[in-house]
């Protein structure tokens, strides 16, 4: 396997101490996942990489294994939310101190992960935002942009901090929020971005954003049809509404040692 997860690897960063798990949700990404994993491992030599193959029907799992990642193979497709929840459950089970989502398609730059991790010093969830500061190279137009603006405004209010890019998947989750997400991470469409933030806030977590660059995808093309954008607008609005009216009886424990399986197998 890859790096032996030492109990306190510094994850290539001076301000974050603890074991870091990079979770890469991947659905039929055999073309891109290998390169992404290798890039993560070279940028963050002390972190463990966990690829969650979300019911892939291609060679995603093998490609990820060959590149040096640990691989969770979901028996059927659960969506990004389900894949991430599996990753969080794994992180909690093995006592990681932080989990960072990095998409398999290469959009997220692993060299920016330390910046996210540094943010965990003062927050429980850190979002790598595409529009703040140096992330401004990412362009969207039309309904999709309106949706993102409305979402950002609404969620900024909920989280009582300025958020500009709430649909970014590039997120770091700290020790306090991990058990919460392991249990309640939303699996519905857009739930992994919008509702997860609402749940975290309701549970008393602190959310922050740091600027991050987005790169073009390694494989596959993003869709830009107006109908799809309109559907997106509607679904995003509905997801937000649902997130806001849902009742969440959740809370996070004050920073303390969580129960973990000791002596993680064969790591």
């Amino acid at each position, binding site marked *: 396997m890859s790096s032996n997860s030492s109990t306190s690897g510094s994850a290539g960063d001076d301000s974050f101490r603890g074991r870091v798990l990079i979770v890469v949700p991947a659905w039929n990404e055999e073309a891109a996942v290998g390169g992404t994993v290798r890039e993560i491992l070279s940028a963050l030599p002390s972190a463990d990489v966990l690829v969650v193959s979300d019911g892939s029907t291609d060679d995603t799992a093998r490609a990820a294994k060959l590149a040096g990642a640990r691989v*969770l193979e979901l028996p*059927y497709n*659960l969506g990004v939310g*389900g894949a991430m929840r*599996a990753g969080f459950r794994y992180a909690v089970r093995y006592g990681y101190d932080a989990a960072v989502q990095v998409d398999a398609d290469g959009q997220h730059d692993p060299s920016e992960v330390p910046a996210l991790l540094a943010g965990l010093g003062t927050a429980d969830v850190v979002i790598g935002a595409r529009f703040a500061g140096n992330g401004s190279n990412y362009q969207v137009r039309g309904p999709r942009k309106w949706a993102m603006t409305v979402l950002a405004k609404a969620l900024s209010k909920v989280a009582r901090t300025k958020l500009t890019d709430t649909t970014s998947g590039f997120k770091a989750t700290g020790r306090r929020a991990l058990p919460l997400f392991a249990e309640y991470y939303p699996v519905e469409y857009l739930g992994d971005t919008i509702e997860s933030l609402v749940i975290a806030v309701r549970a008393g977590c602190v959310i922050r954003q740091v600027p991050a660059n987005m790169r073009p995808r390694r494989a596959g093309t993003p869709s830009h049809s107006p109908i799809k954008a309109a559907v997106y607008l509607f679904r995003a609005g509905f997801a937000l509404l649902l997130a806001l009216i849902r009742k969440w009886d959740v809370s996070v424990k004050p920073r303390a040692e969580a129960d973990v399986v000791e002596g993680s*197998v*064969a790591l």
Partner: protein
Amino acid sequence: MTAYIIGIIGSLIVLGLIVELLRRRQLTEKYAVLWLVIGVIILALTCLGQTGLTVLSRAVGFTVPSNLLFFLAILFLLGVTLHLSWELSRVEDETRKLAEDLAILRLEVEDLREQKQRERQPE
């Protein structure tokens, strides 16, 4: 009169079907109670007959007796579908969690197997 007899026979068949499903353990307890109650209500309503039903519907404010039956039926079916959606959502979430944990356990088993193989080899 024939309609009355057909109605009663129909209700008895429904009730019999429910009891039979219960007997064969094809319905769990929580659904069993619900459906038994429904079966008995259907039988009771049919037994009321034309005049009884008319009196009953007038009393609750329906001019046409069949409207009372339709109203009750729609209300009940709505309730059942909603309940099924609710159950399905729960079951879906449960299977999701199982799938997630299954993936983790699968990885652990693989690790253990590899570890065992490695331990054997040096000898």
